């Protein structure tokens, strides 16, 4: 019975993965397409890779996408965590109100947030460019981080930090040694979502960036008129890079562990 169940769960997860990776596989295959078509495979070629690497705008947009996504993720995760913890200890009315406002950027169509931010920067006389783009990304990432952390804070035993304080821990220790480890899964998924949102954002980026600073999405959308399989090549490279990182991060500790065990046995 138990075996059957684990078989079912494995099968289900396999189906989920197949669903997730079917379009990715499609993108990878068409990045090797001989022609420009995105739906008819005419033959194998590497031309889109060459074109991609030779295309300065693409290379620059990769750079900005990564830099913005990394900084925005780090900042919004830290700020979001702090704010979420503060929020969980606030009065109910403050909490409800803040959460509602927090939901605004998620609820409004991106174009509304984008125009709102653009108007804000214009009326404050701030020139749009790298900084405004980064600020905008941080702004729309934080709510996602908080939303991921709040459930964990709700699940946490509220007496836990209190007990730590009673036992003589400083508030800082209670925070870092008790609360943060307890809500870690929420922080991690919040950071993941923040990175994803920043990496993939188009509308807000478009209206808050300045001349010469583009991310991958701006590039992709602006050419969606004459979409170019170089983007498939780029996507393939992103997939490959992430996969390599994943393997390194996950497999190396496993190998080390095995070696350790072997050594122990030898001892």
């Amino acid at each position: 019975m138990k075996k059957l169940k684990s078989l079912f769960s494995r099968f289900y997860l396999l189906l989920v993965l197949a669903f997730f990776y079917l379009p990715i596989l499609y993108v990878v295959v068409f990045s090797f397409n001989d022609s420009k078509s995105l739906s008819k495979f005419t033959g194998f070629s590497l031309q889109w890779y060459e074109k991609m690497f030779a295309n300065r705008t693409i290379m620059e947009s990769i750079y900005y996408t990564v830099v913005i996504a990394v900084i925005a993720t780090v900042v919004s995760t830290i700020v979001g965590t702090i704010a979420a913890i503060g929020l969980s200890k606030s009065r109910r009315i403050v909490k409800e109100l803040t959460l509602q406002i927090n939901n605004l950027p998620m609820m409004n169509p991106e174009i509304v947030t984008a125009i709102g931010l653009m108007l804000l920067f214009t009326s404050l006389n701030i020139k749009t460019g790298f900084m405004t783009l980064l600020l905008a990304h941080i702004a729309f990432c934080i709510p996602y981080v908080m939303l991921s952390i709040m459930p964990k804070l709700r699940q946490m035993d509220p007496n836990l930090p209190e007990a730590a304080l009673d036992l003589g821990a400083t508030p800082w220790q209670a925070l870092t040694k008790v609360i943060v480890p307890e809500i870690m899964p929420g922080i991690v998924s919040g950071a993941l979502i923040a990175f994803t949102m920043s990496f993939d954002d188009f509308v807000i980026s478009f209206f808050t960036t300045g001349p010469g600073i583009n991310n991958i999405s701006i590039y992709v959308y602006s050419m969606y008129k004459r979409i170019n399989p170089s983007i498939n090549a780029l996507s393939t490279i992103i997939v490959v890079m992430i996969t390599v990182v994943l393997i390194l991060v996950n497999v190396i500790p496993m190998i080390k562990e095995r070696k350790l065990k072997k050594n122990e046995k030898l001892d």
Partner: protein
Amino acid sequence: MKSFARMLYPYLIWIAIMILAPMLLIILYAFTKQGNSVLTLQFTLENFARFFSDSIFPNVLWRSLKIALITTVICILLGYPAAYFIAKLEGNRKSIMVLLITLPMWINMLVRTYAWRGILLNFPVSSEFKVFVGMVYNFIPFMILQIYTSLTKMDQSLLTAAEDLGANKVQTFLRVTLPLSMPGVISGITLVFLPAVSSFFIPKLLGGGDYVLVGNLIENYFISTGDWNFGSAISLIMAVIIMISMFITKKVDYENKGETRA
């Protein structure tokens, strides 16, 4: 303990500038006439009257809400088991699965949707089905992540206690696991439903653009028509409706919680 509440204050300043101020500008637009300069603002309710005067606009909003709702329900039904099974995996495999689910989202949404368009071209399915495939594909990772997060680090002793008290697996799940993971489900609903209402790119690309959705409408009024006032009014109406529906969802959640405690 209250000292932790102070950690919120800097963020309150931040949202006042980065979220509230832009939102106020939009609200200002919604309540003013077009072509006003800041000095000669003329307040009006015309934009709202216009929305409700023609059945077409409420219809568009209703259709968008419906699509978002169906998408959210499918995401819960398919996402919950996935999150549950992932949470049951051992150590390392868990984080690998989580990353594997996040990874496809790092490929541009437009690229992924174009890929689905190409794939589904080969299957004789209705355009409605295509739209939901695209929508669920785009949003379900958020649902899975949120539910998974609430399922991990769940107090295992509660589960053991339930079993000790003679509850079978199904009872344990329904009475203990499910209620405990509800905050995650609610977060998931927020993350899926809110953006889904205003999304229009996926329905447009996969559904053959046969119908207008509210995100499309707002974008149109903001960009191609340049009528920011009406666009702002539409998004304000939408925001209010969504806020009400989210409020109801939360209320239901609180009531349920009261029940399980009792």
